[in-house]
């Protein structure tokens, strides 16, 4: 027990300790190495055990994620849905979540997922602004930088069937279709394909200037909005610039006042017929509208634009009566009931928003395309009238007809009208999309500056819809794979709950008593527990 002895002891203990530490460190290194190794794509195997293969991404998805070059951000927006869809909404979001996790794994760091906490008002407001969202709807926002697309929970990700809530003929609500994978892949394709997307505004024939931010009649503010959405805005004049460039994603024709050269008209028609995208807004002045090619252009695609403009009486806000002599208000306030069910307006309808359309012609569907859909987008209020040309802005029963609701804008969506090469697999399917607006004024700086008009959301929505491409994604249809206890037999749930809550613990209790009985039989002292306590007390 001398000093040297204790020193040796201390040293040998240190030696053993160091040895243990070194072996532990080596084992840790080996462990990390093995883990790294087995996570390599070649060595890693995943076996999907679910019967609906809900954890297996389709080959098309994997191929897309594999060649993903930009970072995709997915924001999940979810609040509990109202009854009777609460449980189903949850189910859809849980599944979408799983799907996103799988995609995240497959994307190798290119896909980031964020759940937006909409309950945190402040953070939600900030995120809402970042995502340039307005209002709220459950769904996903898929963004690639400033280019983003919204996928609604109900409609894009899944289709619900509300069922029949009447007790006698009750049919439970159900998920008709779960299509999240297809929708997400489509959205990713949308936001990634082609680094930049270009919109060409025709110019030089009386059209409003797309780059003018100063004048009230300029479109500069709209262009800024579109640039904010990741689009590039150009002016295009056939005479100066030649045919439309290949990268053209859409053509906008805003209020030409004179006719185009024939080549230019032919170029635009040819472009649209082959699956192009077109936005047309009619010139305000009837004579000029008549001179321009807009009526012909629209007629070519089955739409009609009137020379006359829609007016409606100006009502006093307090009394609800027509302000004396004012039958000719030209600012149309479009509320939810005047909007059609169209993707352009769905977000706005969802939040009960409204906007104003100033000085509009009537745009109506003339001929329904045989293989597509032409539909009215907006309507004026039911008490409006059509001021026949020349627009004297004075109601004349003889000329101007009856009071009713008039269409202010229309859309066309149809397959290409000429034969084009159809892509296979993940490619884009060419499709004709047209938005025809009766009013050029709603696009101007003046309108966008006016806080009461609030037309920018609609315009952005219109351009987004126009530029949204239909993708051919070959994918098995999503199997809802719903497993519910039969609702028509509530006693089945009661049985399950009884088993879980009473029978199973009771059975365990009985087994424990049996074991206790068996164990204590043949022993003089019965209590096993007592002896244990005595043991530990010793």
């Amino acid at each position: 027990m001398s000093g040297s002895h204790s020193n040796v002891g201390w040293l040998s203990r240190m030696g053993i300790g160091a040895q243990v530490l070194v072996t532990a460190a080596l084992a840790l290194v080996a462990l990390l190495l093995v883990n790294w190794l087995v996570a390599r794509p070649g060595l890693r195997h995943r076996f999907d055990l679910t019967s609906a293969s809900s954890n297996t991404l389709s080959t098309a998805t994997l191929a897309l994620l594999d060649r993903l070059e930009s970072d995709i951000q997915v924001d999940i927006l979810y609040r509990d849905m109202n009854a009777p869809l609460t449980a189903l909404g949850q189910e859809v979001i849980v599944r979408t979540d799983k799907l996103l996790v799988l995609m995240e794994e497959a994307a190798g760091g290119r896909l980031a997922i964020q759940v937006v906490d909409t309950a945190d008002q402040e953070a939600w407001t900030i995120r809402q602004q970042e995502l340039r969202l307005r209002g709220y709807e459950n769904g996903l926002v898929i963004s690639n930088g400033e280019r983003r697309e919204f996928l609604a929970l109900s409609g894009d990700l899944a289709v619900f069937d509300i069922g029949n809530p009447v007790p006698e003929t009750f049919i439970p609500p159900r998920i008709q279709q779960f299509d999240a994978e297809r929708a997400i892949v489509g959205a990713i394709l949308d936001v990634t394909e082609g680094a930049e997307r270009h919109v060409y505004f025709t110019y030089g024939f009386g059209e409003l200037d797309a780059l003018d931010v100063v004048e009230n009649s300029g479109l500069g503010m709209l262009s800024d909005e579109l640039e904010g959405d990741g689009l590039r805005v150009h002016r295009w004049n056939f005479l100066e610039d030649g045919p439309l460039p290949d990268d053209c994603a859409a053509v906008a024709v805003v209020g030409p006042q004179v006719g185009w050269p024939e080549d230019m008209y032919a170029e635009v028609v040819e472009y649209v017929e082959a699956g192009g995208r077109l936005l047309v807004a009619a010139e305000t002045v009837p004579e000029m509208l008549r001179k321009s090619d807009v009526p012909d252009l629209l007629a070519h695609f089955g739409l009609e634009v009137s020379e006359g403009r829609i007016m409606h009486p100006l009502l006093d806000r307090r009394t609800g009566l027509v302000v004396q002599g004012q039958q000719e208000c030209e600012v149309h306030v479009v509320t939810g009931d005047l909007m059609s069910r169209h993707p352009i307006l769905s977000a706005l309808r969802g939040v009960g928003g409204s906007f104003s359309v100033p000085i509009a012609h009537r745009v109506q569907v003339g001929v329904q395309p045989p293989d597509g859909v032409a539909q009215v987008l907006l309507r004026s209020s039911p008490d409006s009238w059509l001021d026949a040309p020349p627009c004297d802005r004075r109601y004349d029963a003889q000329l101007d007809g009856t009071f009713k609701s008039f269409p202010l804008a229309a859309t066309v969506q149809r397959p290409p009208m000429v034969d084009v090469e159809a892509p296979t697999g993940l490619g884009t399917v060419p499709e004709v999309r047209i938005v025809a607006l009766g009013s050029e004024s709603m696009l101007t700086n003046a309108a966008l500056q006016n806080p009461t008009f609030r037309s920018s959301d609609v315009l952005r929505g219109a351009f987004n819809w126009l530029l949204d491409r239909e993708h051919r994604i070959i994918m098995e249809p999503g199997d809802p794979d719903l497993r519910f206890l039969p609702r028509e037999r509530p006693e089945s749930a009661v049985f399950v709950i009884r088993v879980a809550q009473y029978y199973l613990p009771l059975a365990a209790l009985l087994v424990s008593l049996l074991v206790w009985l068996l164990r204590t039989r043949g022993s003089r002292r019965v209590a096993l527990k007592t002896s244990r306590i005595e043991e530990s007390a010793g």
Partner: protein
Amino acid sequence: MIGTFVVARRELSGLFMAPFTWIVLLVVLFINGLLFSSFLYQTQGNVTATLSESMTGPSFWLWMIFLPALLSMRLVAEESRSGTLEYLLTAPVSDAAVVLGKFLAATGFLALLWSSSLIYAVTLDYAGGPPDWPAVIGTWFGTILVSGLFVSIGMLASTSTSTPLLAAFLSMVSCLMWIAIPFLAANIMAYLVPLLTSTAAEQAVLAERMGSVVASMDALRHFSRSFQMGVLDTAEIVFFLTWISFFLFLTARSIEARRWRG
């Protein structure tokens, strides 16, 4: 190898002969039954969601903090105090066999406990809501692996003391730490990253690197990305098995160190 099974068999039968184990079993079954019923009610009879929530929900992770600690306290610390560990460690079986045997017994007990979920599933099947059996079994297998991981952590913590209560407490804290790694690491990183780097770009890179290291140890994440979804992933299975072996190895070393410490 034979020694391992001899020890495991005795430990497992020893567990079921003690009233302590039955009390734990009853409490867990009772609470899990209540939770299961409430999930079934909340999800309006959604079989998949209810089973998933009761097998892998927060309650499962809460049990993972307490149960392995109690089991390893019984299997290691109490035996160390009563002297039966001396008996085992002088019996003709290796330390590794003793450690492995005890580990298998505790994990086996938890596996049995979690198979109560399979009974729920059978009941649901009988009542007309057939569960997705392969996925349910895959998830059950995953819960066993998670149990194994936490038992091995608990055993390592338990070998450091022969005071049962202290051992249980240490095990509990260790298991909690293991679950809380991502949260702790996030907090620590928030302090550390600005200290180590100067520019925002470097910070982002460092934070991402550290984040990936932390994520690679996050048992919750590993579990939720494979077994919980009904996927068998070789990499995740290896993750759990290697960490279990690592902790068991350390446990065996720790027991060996007793021979030196006395």
